[in-house]
């Protein structure tokens, strides 16, 4: 399957998946950022940086389409997202502060529900994904009986089966133990090597080789490349 897609690969590497032009966002009558432009190329991990309240979460929510209070231009593969919302959503995976896990359902049921509108996935694959995040033995335990970190891991199991080219990950390292962090870092790097694009916000000391930084801050925006 992978080799079949190789030919597209080279052409895609040069074209940005996501392009932001002159973004401006206002929240509670305070301008979080203005004239923010950047492009996200395939095969990159970008860390969105900035102090608390600098708009990292807001930026990711904007990119995901959860926040409408912004002006500017957002393009997916060269054309405006507003005109191809469903296509963009199919290509984007967003994990937010709130894990999106129902405490009353088991990890399996949660994953099944999360994948229901995206693509058909067999139970065997879901089980494998849960095992991959270290949840073997907990597949059929209601999530409210799991620890905060384990609940996060249920949400992260989606990354193991996600085929979306763009990942927007907001504070995914929260409540994850040291081993989990190492595995997650490796996963992000592997994803970039596969040609995916990852945007991540974190207060964890993340330093992947070749990682790009997008810095938001009081003194305007710098895009260090």
């Amino acid at each position: 399957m992978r080799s079949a897609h190789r030919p597209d690969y080279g052409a895609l590497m040069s074209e940005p998946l996501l392009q932001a032009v002159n973004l401006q966002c206002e929240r509670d009558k305070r301008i979080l950022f203005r004239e923010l432009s950047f492009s996200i190329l395939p095969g990159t991990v970008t860390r969105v940086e900035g102090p608390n309240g600098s708009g990292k979460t807001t930026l990711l929510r904007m990119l995901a389409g959860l926040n409408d209070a912004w002006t500017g231009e957002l393009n997916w593969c060269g054309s405006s997202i507003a005109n191809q919302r469903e296509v963009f959503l199919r290509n984007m995976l967003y994990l937010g502060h709130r894990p999106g896990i129902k405490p009353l359902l088991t990890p399996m049921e949660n994953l099944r529900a999360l994948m229901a509108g995206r693509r058909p996935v067999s139970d065997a694959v879901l089980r494998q994904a849960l095992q991959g995040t270290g949840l073997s033995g907990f597949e059929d335990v209601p999530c409210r009986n799991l620890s905060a970190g384990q609940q996060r891991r249920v949400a992260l199991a989606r990354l193991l089966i996600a085929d979306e080219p763009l990942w927007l990950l907001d504070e995914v390292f929260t409540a994850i133990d040291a081993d989990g962090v190492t595995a997650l870092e490796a996963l992000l790097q592997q994803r970039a090597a596969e040609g995916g694009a990852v945007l991540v916000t974190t207060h964890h000391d993340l330093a992947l080789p070749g990682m790009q930084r997008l810095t938001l801050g009081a003194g305007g925006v710098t895009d260090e490349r």
Partner: protein
Amino acid sequence: MNVEVRPVVPLASSSVGALAAMKGVFSRDMKVAFRQRQDLLNPLLFFIMVVTLFPLGVSPEASFLREAGAGILWVAALLSVLLSLDHLFRHDFDDGTLEQLVLQPQPLFLLILAKTMAHWMLTGLPLVILTPVLGVMVHLDGNSIAVLCLTLLIGTPVLSLIGAIGAALTLGLRSAGVLLSLLIIPLYIPVLIFGTGTVAAAAEGASVGAYLALMGAFLMLALTLAPFAAAAALRISLSNG
């Protein structure tokens, strides 16, 4: 750590149909509800309590109850649906599943329609099923009970659908209860008037066809418009949240 090979190529469209996505939303809501049964019982108990308290509080005379019975049942059903509305999106909002719902590559109004259908199956439908028993309790005759059940069967989905708009609009607020009622009750009034009017007409022996047709029209209107309005309201609430 990877479990399968994932091509990294922008995808053209969703590989799952909207119907499968709706089924996923519906079955998840049903599962969650049945693991939290006390929440399921609340609107039902409320319904039963209001209907049983009326004869005690006003008059246990059969003649009064026969006349007021349909109205009492309709008002009680309306209020108990109203009571359950705040939960429609609230839990999903708090645990983040609502965000993931909105981000599904599917038409949002269809997913909301599926959610509302689940809500009706869990609140409206049990009320309709209980109605014959409570109808006998308030001395309604067989024909009136049948017509009452029919009006509730058509009317309660309208209550759920209109309620979804209000629930979506008030989602971002911390205490939404009163505002939700204020927004929704004016829209419930026509349904209530025609619901009880149908039963009154049936009790007088008049034809109820026209009334039922109007209620059916309400249902169609709500089915086609409410999911769109609720979807738009939901986006606004999430954008502020």
